[in-house]
Each structure stands twice: as structure tokens, then as C-alpha cells.
């Protein structure tokens, strides 16, 4: 039997199960709801702007097919229908993360169902545009610094953030 000593918050004797509290594992964000519509719309606008700026920086350093891919990705992030659809879902009570994930998933599904194999494969690009915006909403980005890739978090050594006792800044270490 393991004995753990803690600090008494109240006098008395209690018997029960002990739990270790850890940050929750990644959750499906598509059900997240909020009442603060205005805040979510502003968050989404800011995140989209940041994703665009990051893509511009990446594109200015790229050439050929990579530049073309980044250009298409930027158009997706900056898509007026994506914004309209997401704003409508936020107005219906969803968070920015939920809205953007739902709308991009919807477009991805439409593309995946096209007979043209190349276009069907673009479904993944659309999902990536969604993940890119969600990453910005969480204060991180999709890109991993090359010197950090695979090295793990400097404090906990883990590559995934969800089991880390200190999640701050973890997303850039994958």
C-alpha cells in the first residue's frame, strides 16, 4: 500500500479513491459551444489574419510547386465563404474552433466525393487550412521549427502536449 501525505483542508477523516489530475487529452472541438458570439468572431478574425501572415512569410521563401501549394492554402484560409459559414455557426452558439472545423470538414467532404481523384485529394488541403486556423486560435502554428522537430519538449521531453504537466509552448515541439 502506498501512503501519500497531503495537507488537510478541513478536519476529519475521509476514505475514498484518489485521482491524479492531468490536463485533458485532445478533445473533439466540434461540439464546443459558447454564449460569447462577439468574442469568438473576433478570435476567428485574428486567427485567420495570423494564419495568412504566416503563409505569406512561408510563401516568400518558397518557389515552384511549394509556392503554388502555399498560395492555394492561403486562398483557402482567406475564403469569404469559409468566413461566412463559420460566422453563421458562431452566431448559432459554436466556438470559433468548432465552427471552422465544421465548415472545413463540410467542404472537405464535398471535395472527397468528386470523381476527379486530384480534386478529391484536395480535401486534405482544406482540412489542413482548418487545422491551421485552429492552431492559431490556440496560440500556436502548424509549422514546427526544424531544430525542434522530433526533439520533444525541453521541460518534459514529450512530443505530444497532452500528457505534459506544462502545456505552454508545447505545440511547437512535435
Amino acid at each position: 500500500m502506498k501512503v501519500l501525505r497531503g495537507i488537510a483542508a478541513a478536519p476529519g477523516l475521509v476514505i475514498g479513491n484518489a485521482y491524479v489530475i492531468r490536463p485533458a487529452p485532445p478533445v473533439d472541438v466540434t461540439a464546443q459551444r459558447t454564449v460569447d458570439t462577439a468574442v469568438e468572431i473576433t478570435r476567428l478574425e485574428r486567427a485567420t489574419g495570423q494564419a495568412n501572415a504566416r503563409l505569406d512569410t512561408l510563401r516568400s521563401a518558397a518557389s515552384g510547386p511549394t509556392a503554388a501549394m502555399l498560395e492555394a492554402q492561403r486562398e483557402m484560409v482567406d475564403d469569404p465563404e469559409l468566413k461566412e459559414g463559420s460566422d453563421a455557426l458562431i452566431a448559432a452558439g459554436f466556438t470559433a474552433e468548432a465552427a471552422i472545423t465544421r465548415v472545413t470538414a463540410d467542404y472537405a467532404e464535398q471535395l472527397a466525393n468528386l470523381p476527379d481523384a486530384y480534386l478529391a485529394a484536395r480535401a486534405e488541403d482544406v482540412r489542413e487550412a482548418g487545422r491551421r486556423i485552429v492552431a492559431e486560435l490556440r496560440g500556436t502554428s502548424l509549422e514546427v521549427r526544424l531544430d525542434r522537430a522530433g526533439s520533444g519538449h525541453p521541460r518534459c521531453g514529450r512530443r505530444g502536449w497532452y500528457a505534459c504537466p506544462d502545456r505552454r509552448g508545447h505545440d511547437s515541439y512535435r
Partner: protein
Amino acid sequence: MERTVTLGSKSGLHARPAAVFVQNAKGFQSQVTLSKNDKTVNAKSILSVLTLGAEQGDQVVLKVDGDDAEVAIDKLALLLEGDLG
């Protein structure tokens, strides 16, 4: 204004050509839509344009409505008929 155009791009309206077309459409004030068969989408939205699944040789209908419609329809039709890169 409305014009039926035959798609010239070898790869149809794939990601890169669609991005070029959409960027040009966004440069006009006019409302621009693109239709294939019975489906009509906002031509300033790459996601929507891609869902048309338009390929080389397909007939698409370009519809432009607004102050700069005349210039817009000429330029956008020319782009669709050409290679689009």
C-alpha cells in the same frame, strides 16, 4: 452579364488554377458566380470553386454583376479559356 466559357486549363480548375482565377475575381467589385451544370458558386471562394469539379473542356457559365462587370467578364472569361498556369 453572363457568358458561357469552355475551360482551357489542362488540369481543369485544380488548386493552382483555381487560386489564380479566384484571386483575379476578388480584384473586381462585382459579384461573380461560376456555374457548372446546375451548381452555382461564389467565384471569389476557392473552396466553392473547387467543389464544381470543373475539368478541361467543361462548359461553365460566368455571371458578373456590378459596376466593373464589363471589364471583369472579359478578363475572367479570358482566364478561364486560357491555361491559368
